[in-house]
C-alpha cells in the first residue's frame, strides 16, 4: 500500500499552496516522484515532461487548466482532475478519458486513483 506509486512520476498542478504541499507529501510517501506547479504558466512549463499521470486542479489564478490538460492528453498522459469546480459534466465532455475526483478527496482514493491511472 505504501508503495503504490513507487517509480511513478506525477505532475501536480494546484494553486492552493497548502493543498499542493499536502498532496505532494502524500504522493511522495507512497513512492511517487512529484513535480508541482502553482499556476497554469508554471504547469505549461512542464507540459513536455515524461509523466506517468497528472493530477490537475481546474481553476488556477491565471486561467483554467485546460490548455495544459489538452497538451498532456495529446501525449496520452492520463489525467486526473481534482476539483471543487461546479460544472463537472462539462469537464467530462471535454476530456472523456479523464478521471474526476471531487475536492477534497480522501487520501486512499487519491492514491488508488493515481496508481490505477498511471501507465
Amino acid at each position, binding site marked *: 500500500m505504501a508503495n503504490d506509486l513507487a517509480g511513478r512520476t506525477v505532475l501536480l498542478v494546484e*494553486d*492552493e*499552496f*497548502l*493543498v499542493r*504541499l*499536502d*498532496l505532494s*507529501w*502524500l504522493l511522495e510517501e507512497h513512492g511517487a516522484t512529484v513535480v508541482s506547479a*502553482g499556476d497554469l504558466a508554471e504547469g505549461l512549463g512542464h507540459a513536455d515532461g515524461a509523466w506517468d499521470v497528472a493530477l490537475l486542479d481546474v*481553476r488556477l*489564478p491565471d486561467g483554467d487548466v485546460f490548455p495544459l490538460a489538452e497538451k498532456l492528453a495529446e501525449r496520452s498522459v492520463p489525467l486526473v482532475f481534482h476539483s*471543487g*469546480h*461546479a*460544472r463537472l459534466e462539462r469537464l467530462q465532455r471535454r476530456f472523456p478519458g479523464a478521471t474526476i475526483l*471531487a*475536492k*477534497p478527496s480522501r*487520501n486512499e482514493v487519491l492514491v488508488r486513483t493515481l496508481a490505477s491511472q498511471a501507465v
Partner: protein
Amino acid sequence: MTKASSSFADRLRERLGGMDAVDAAGRALVALEAGRMGTWTLDIPSNMVTGDTVVADLLQLDFDDQPWPADQVYARMHPDDLPRVQVEVAASLEHDAFYEVEFRDIGVDLETDRARSRWLGARGHVTRRAPDGTALQMIGVNWDATEAKEAEARLEAMAEEMDHRVKNAFAAIRALVNMGERFGGDRASFARTLRGQVQALADTHAISSRLARGVGGAAVSVPALDVLEAALAPWKEGGGSRVVLQVQPGIVLPTADAATLAMLVYELAGEAAERGALGRSDGALRVTLARQEARHAAFIWEETVPGGVAGPTDQAPAAFGAVLAEQCVAALKGRMRREHGRGRLRFELDFPVAPAAAPAA
C-alpha cells in the same frame, strides 16, 4: 381545445365581468405600466402583428407602419433564440397554454448601428378561437428582462464562486490536519496552530467577501493592512501601546497571497500568545510592512519581552507551526530571517509585491 379556449373567456368574464370597456382598458393599462410592459396582438389567419409603442421600441419596429408581418417581428430576435420562440408559440396555439419565453434581441441598434443587446421577456395567450378550436388571435406582452437576466447570471456566478471557496476551505483544513499529523509536536501546540489557521481562513474569507460585495464580484486583491489588522485585533483591543502595527498605505496583495500572509501572521501571533510577547503583560509587539523597492516589501515582526522570548529552537525540530511558516514564506516567494535572544524575537520577511498603483489623475 374549445373547452380550454372558453376557460380564457371564463377568466376574462370573471375578472372584468360587468365592467365597462373603458374601465377594463384602464385596468389593463395600469397593469402594463406597473410591469413596464408593452402589448401586442398576433392575428393568426393573416400572420400579422400589431403592438404598442413599448413593443415597437423593444423590437425596433416602426410604430407608424403597422401591422407588421410576423416574420418581420421574428427577424428582430436573436437567430439562436428564434427557434425556441417559435416552438413556444406553436405549443401555445395548440395546447392553449400560456406562451412564455425569454429571448435576446439582435444585439444592434438599427438606427445608430451600435451594439445594443437586450433580453426580452414575453408572455401571451390565445384570446380567440374558431368554433372548431383553430386559434385566431393571440395577445401578449413584452418587457425588458436584461436587468433580471444579469442579476440571475451574477447570482449564479456568486453561488459557483462560493461553492468553490467552501470546497477549497475544506481541502485546506484537510491539508492542515494531515500536516499536523506529519509534523506534530505536542497536542497543545498542534491544536494552537490549527485553531489559528482555521481563524486565518475564516478572517481572510470575511475580508474578501466584504471586498467582493463592494465591487459586485469576486475580489481579486486585498489590502495587506486589512489582513494584519484582523490578525492582531484580539491583542490590540484594550492593549494600549503594547501592540503597534504600521503598514505603508497602498500595499495590496492578490487574494491567494493575502491568505498566505494571514496564515503566517496567525501562526506568529499564536506562538507569541503562547510563549512570547502577546502572552505577557510586559511584552510588546511591533509589526511593520513597508515597500523596500518598487516590487518588494519588508514585513517585520518584532517582539520584546523583558524576561526573554522562548524561541523556536526550544521546540521539537520541524514542528507543525514552524514548517507551516516556512512553507508560507516559500509560497510568497519570499526570504525570511529569524533572530531571537536576549528578550527579543525578530522575524523578517522580504517578498515581492505588485508595484504601487499610479495615483489617479
